[in-house]
């Protein structure tokens, strides 16, 4: 048993269980974090009754989910209705397997377990699986979370749920494209599909990818918000229009699983942004946070840094949610197809060009390319017609400004 735990396979199993358990807890406290941030944004206290500072609130919420009656309405497709939250939860859970949490671990520094090993005799990778197609796997798994939403919405046999499901589907198909293209920009720059190598190379050179491709990082962050169904992209569960969206008919633990899935995919997508653009577990000037430091304490420090970066990004997610109003559906589609896709295509072509001339690691060249793409996008946008949006009363003025007949505006 002791020997099994210090093989890569045994270590991966333990790490998978550990990461899964920690993420469960993190999700519960994400909800607390979200409510506190909402309160801070809206100048009120937020949860402060259960325990000191309201810290026991997530436990109370979790218990409430568990103890509610597990009710299945009579008019639903029972099999798919039960299956949908399960799919959502499992799919959001298996994305974690690929994330690199802390580089390499020297098994001999493990207390008790590694006492019989020589230093450097066995190196373990602090990652559940290391695939040479890591990024492809992550893309595939992240795009699958839409199945839970679509099946849940359809099987509920409720028009509001159905609208939510259809919106989620169209949104997912649209935002996957710029997401994939911006990830490809990083792949071209680093020359590998392995997430751990991307993190390690940023640590080794000390240059985070966000310094090379800030525009790509921004696009990836926006699409990550959309993939996680977070405001301002939460049209699938717009409570003002759709009651509750795709999970209108759900309650108790089944609703809880949808909720867990949403927060878990927030953590996965922000961890992806951290690994691809923000240097993974690396911080400058700390000797424990380099590729060479492989003791258990260095690995724990790296995991803490990675989790801290993820927490900062999640704070930004929540800040955005409580600051920006939700998009309308046509605005959502316009943003994806008319601005994010062309810009990320431009960045991708530019990154390929830089690679051809061998300039893909040069910060100045990459920044120049980003500036050119941004300037091009601004130039095209300023020459185009202003999009016709807003209240009916404004349509006449907008039609006059754009020089189009009013009838066309109204359709």
């Amino acid at each position, binding site marked *: 048993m002791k020997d099994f735990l210090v*093989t*890569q*396979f045994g270590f991966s199993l333990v790490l998978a269980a550990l990461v899964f358990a920690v993420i469960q807890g993190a999700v519960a406290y994400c909800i607390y974090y979200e409510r506190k941030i909402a309160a801070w944004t809206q100048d009120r206290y937020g949860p402060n009754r259960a325990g000191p500072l309201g810290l026991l609130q997530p436990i109370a919420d979790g218990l409430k989910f568990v103890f509610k009656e597990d009710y299945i309405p009579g008019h639903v*497709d029972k*099999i*798919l209705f039960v*299956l949908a939250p399960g799919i959502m939860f499992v799919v959001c859970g298996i994305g974690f397997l690929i994330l690199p949490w802390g580089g390499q671990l020297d098994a001999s520094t493990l207390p008790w377990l590694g006492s019989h090993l020589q230093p450097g005799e066995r*190196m373990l*990778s602090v990652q559940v*699986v*290391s*695939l*040479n*197609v890591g990024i*492809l*796997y992550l*893309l*595939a*798994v992240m*795009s*699958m979370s*839409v*199945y839970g939403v*679509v*099946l849940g919405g*359809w*099987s509920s*046999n409720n028009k509001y749920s*159905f609208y939510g*499901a*259809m919106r989620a*589907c169209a949104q997912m*198909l649209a935002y996957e494209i710029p997401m994939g293209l911006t990830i490809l920009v990083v792949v071209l720059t680093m020359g590998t*599909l392995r997430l751990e190598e991307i993190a390690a190379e940023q640590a080794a050179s000390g240059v985070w990818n966000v310094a090379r491709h800030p525009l790509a990082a921004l696009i990836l962050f926006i699409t990550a918000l959309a993939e996680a169904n977070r405001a301002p992209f939460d049209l699938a569960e717009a409570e003002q229009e759709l009651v509750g969206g795709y999970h209108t008919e759900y309650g108790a633990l089944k609703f809880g699983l949808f909720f867990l899935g949403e927060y878990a995919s927030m953590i996965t997508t922000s961890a992806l942004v951290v690994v691809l653009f923000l240097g993974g577990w690396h911080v400058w000037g700390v000797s424990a946070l380099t590729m060479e430091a492989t003791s258990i304490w260095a690995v724990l420090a790296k995991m803490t840094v990675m989790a801290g970066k993820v927490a900062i990004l999640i704070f930004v997610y929540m800040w955005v949610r409580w600051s920006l109003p939700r998009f309308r559906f046509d605005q959502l589609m316009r943003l994806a197809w008319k601005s994010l896709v062309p810009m990320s295509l431009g960045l991708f072509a530019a990154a390929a060009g830089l690679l051809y001339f061998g300039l893909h690691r040069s910060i100045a060249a990459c920044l120049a390319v980003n500036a050119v793409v941004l300037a091009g996008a601004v130039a095209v946008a300023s020459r185009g017609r202003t999009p016709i949006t807003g209240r009916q009363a404004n349509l006449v003025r907008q039609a006059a400004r754009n020089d189009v007949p009013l009838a066309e505006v109204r359709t």
Partner: protein
Amino acid sequence: MSLQVGILWLCVTALPALAHEEAASGVGTGVVYAVPGGWFEAVMFYVFAGTAVLSAIGVCVSRSVVRMATWLFFALGAISVLYFLLAATFIAAIQLIVYVGGVLILLIFGVMLTSQSPWVRFTPSRLNLAVAGLICVGLLVCLSSILLEADFGAPLSTTPGVTVEAIGRRMLTHYLVPFEIAGVLLMIVMVGAAHLARQEKQ
């Protein structure tokens, strides 16, 4: 859209041959994964092979289009896990993206066909059953003739090779023409789809 999925399917079915070639040459990757052979692999194989077969039966037995698509999702997902067990990680990931992702489109078709009344049942005609039965028997003959001739002697390596790089190189050198033709076809499909979508509006 179904044409698009079909073409992608054709592209991907050509790939297993490439991966097999690469796995044989077996280049190391730095981190060695001691996947225990024997019982663990056997258990995983039987669990996921069983899932694939049961879900495939579910596709045939279901009467609701959306349920069929859901079982197809599980069948294709389980097959992708089998590819992971064979250390063919690239094929496994592509299986997830193309097939399992493609099921979404099927699902949406199903959802839209049944949007009038969600519990519409699908009953195949006798002609449909006869044609499907003929195709199945033909496939069974082909596959079993391959199975009978196959040599299951040497176990495959469980160490993943550098498949992505090799496949990429082959795609842009040895298999450039099929690759380009597939690309042009996809382009035509996309332009055609955009054209059709436009025409409907007017």
